[in-house]
């Protein structure tokens, strides 16, 4: 739960900075302010969310307990402190702070923190071979994370002045798109796809996908990441054009996204549970965002130029698909883990609330709708290059996120459970941040 809490705080902070007009589109794409916002979102929010979720769900994917569970808490501390130093380092690039020592230190701490997380999840996967397909996606995602973190580490050392080896300086100058592709496409997207291949049939009671479509989707996405990262690094070392390599990777990734979308549509169509829970209805909006993000770049690039097209599309992937899906799934995971923790020991022995008694879906639904409406509005604002409209839309996103966080805290604290049934004899009282469930930090 501490991972989820740190992630949500980072998300709120990111959105507040966007409302304040910090970073893109008020500043340039590579301005220090933009770097602060992007890394707060990518590391603080999405990566911590993903790591926290993987610690919970990789054991479910492979039916094997988490190896190195003792690493999860130190990893969180290293990542949070490293991120704080990294952001301070970016601010010092913008002249807000005087020293340059933060960047290399932050890069090192982030490296160590992510190495611990990768070790815990990776060991669990290694001990569970042969891997089922969803877990194979996660394994590929870990490789993407390693690539993104390694490149990031090189950047921090070059920018912080601890190295001036010409090859590394060149990588730092040209490698940003590869770093971003590895982080967003390799790590976050691969893991999100892998986890959803297992969780969606579970939540929707739908049959596992038939045929080879998902295997082809895996091979295509693996190919896309390999081209983007392997080809990208090769292009950096050989001084080829990085953007043409990434274009190829992008086209392959679009094919993978199409196959994945087909499987997701089949999950919804083939479900045996007619009445959808709020988290699954909201997840559909997140998938719609992914669809738009895949389709939009080409017309947008033609209409408004590559920079705005890519910025709008990346924003939509990060905030529409990944963040929207993340918030929707948190709205399922937090009540479930809390229910299991508090009432698990007395199930069958005393009347207990149901999982759905921990949430109030009617009260939460409007805020999820506001969230997606404002994210789509912000995407349009980015495409049309209107900084003012982007900030207004960002305010909607911030308000909706804050309200959703309140609902998550209420679920965690059992506030929506009728008072008489909240603590039957023997039920455990939840702590907001610490979870006794295995891997539940």
């Amino acid at each position, binding site marked *: 739960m501490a991972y989820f809490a740190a992630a949500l705080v980072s998300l709120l902070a990111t959105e507040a900075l966007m409302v304040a007009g910090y970073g893109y589109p008020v500043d340039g794409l590579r301005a220090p302010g933009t770097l602060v916002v992007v890394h707060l979102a990518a590391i603080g929010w999405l990566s911590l969310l993903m790591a926290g979720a993987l610690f919970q769900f990789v*054991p*479910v994917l492979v*039916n*094997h307990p988490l190896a190195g569970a003792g690493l999860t808490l130190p990893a969180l501390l290293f990542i949070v402190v490293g991120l704080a130093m990294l952001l301070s380092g970016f601010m010092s690039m913008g002249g807000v702070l005087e020293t340059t020592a933060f960047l290399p230190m932050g890069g090192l701490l982030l490296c160590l923190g992510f190495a611990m997380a990768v070790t815990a999840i990776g060991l669990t996967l290694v*001990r*569970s*071979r*042969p891997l089922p397909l969803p877990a194979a996606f996660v394994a590929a995602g870990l490789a993407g994370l390693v690539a993104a973190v390694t490149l990031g580490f090189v950047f921090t050392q070059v920018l912080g002045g601890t190295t001036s080896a010409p090859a590394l300086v060149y990588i730092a100058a040209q490698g940003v798109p590869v770093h971003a592709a590895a982080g967003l496409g390799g790590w976050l997207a691969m893991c999100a796809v892998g986890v959803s291949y297992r969780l969606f049939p*579970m*939540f929707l*009671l739908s049959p596992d996908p038939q045929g080879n479509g998902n295997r082809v989707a895996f091979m295509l996405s693996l190919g896309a990441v390999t081209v983007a990262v392997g080809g990208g690094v090769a292009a950096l070392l050989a001084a080829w054009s990085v953007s043409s390599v990434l274009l190829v990777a992008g086209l392959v990734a679009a094919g993978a996204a199409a196959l994945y979308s087909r499987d997701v549509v089949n999950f919804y169509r083939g479900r*045996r*549970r007619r009445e959808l829970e709020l988290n699954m209805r909201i997840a559909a909006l997140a998938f719609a965002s992914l669809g738009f993000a895949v389709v939009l770049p080409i017309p947008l690039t033609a209409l408004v130029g590559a920079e705005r097209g890519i910025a709008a599309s990346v924003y939509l992937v990060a905030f529409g698909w990944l963040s929207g899906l993340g918030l929707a799934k948190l709205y399922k995971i937090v009540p*479930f883990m809390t*229910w*299991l923790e508090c009432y*698990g*020991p007395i*199930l*069958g*022995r005393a009347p207990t609330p149901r*999982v759905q008694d921990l949430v109030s879906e009617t009260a939460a639904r409007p805020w999820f709708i506001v969230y997606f409406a404002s994210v789509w509005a912000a995407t349009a604002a980015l495409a049309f290059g209107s900084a003012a409209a982007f900030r207004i839309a960002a305010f909607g996103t911030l308000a909706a996120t804050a309200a959703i966080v309140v609902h998550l805290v209420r679920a965690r604290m059992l506030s929506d459970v009728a008072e008489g049934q909240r603590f039957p004899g023997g039920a455990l009282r939840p702590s907001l941040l610490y979870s006794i469930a*295995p891997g539940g930090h």
Partner: protein
Amino acid sequence: MTDYVELDVRPILTGGGEPFGRIMETVASLKPGEGLRLLAPFRPVPLFGALGSKGFTHQDREIGGGDWEVLFTPTAGPAASPAEAVGDRWPTPLMHLDNRGLMPPEPMVKVLGAVEAMQAGEVMEALLDREPTFLFPQLTQRGHEWRGGFDPDGTVYRLLVRIGTGS
């Protein structure tokens, strides 16, 4: 000297089947003191833990062509009660639950509810859609034993729970 019952799961896997249910059936049918000789096309690491919790030690060796032979040998643990020493056979299930098609966590709630109504030593059988990962720790915590695996067709997970004496 331990006698070993041989089970070759390579044909099952070649045919695209899921051997776990078959392995568990074979293990359940072993006579006291009998072990299992398993032949598999890979090193079946997950089984080491699953059978370890049922009181088997394992010795594995590669037999060429990427295939493995694993000997699972029963240990006479000091914790074994007289009832268990008579055999690792479980009595016929008294309670049957069909929890397929239920929304999680309903299957778990039903199993735990039924478990409370049963006497020590009795066995319950439950049919599930998937391996109940979150249920196992709850059963262990309450002192019950469990065995489970997918049927050979891979669509039904068959769980057996033997009620423990203390919890």
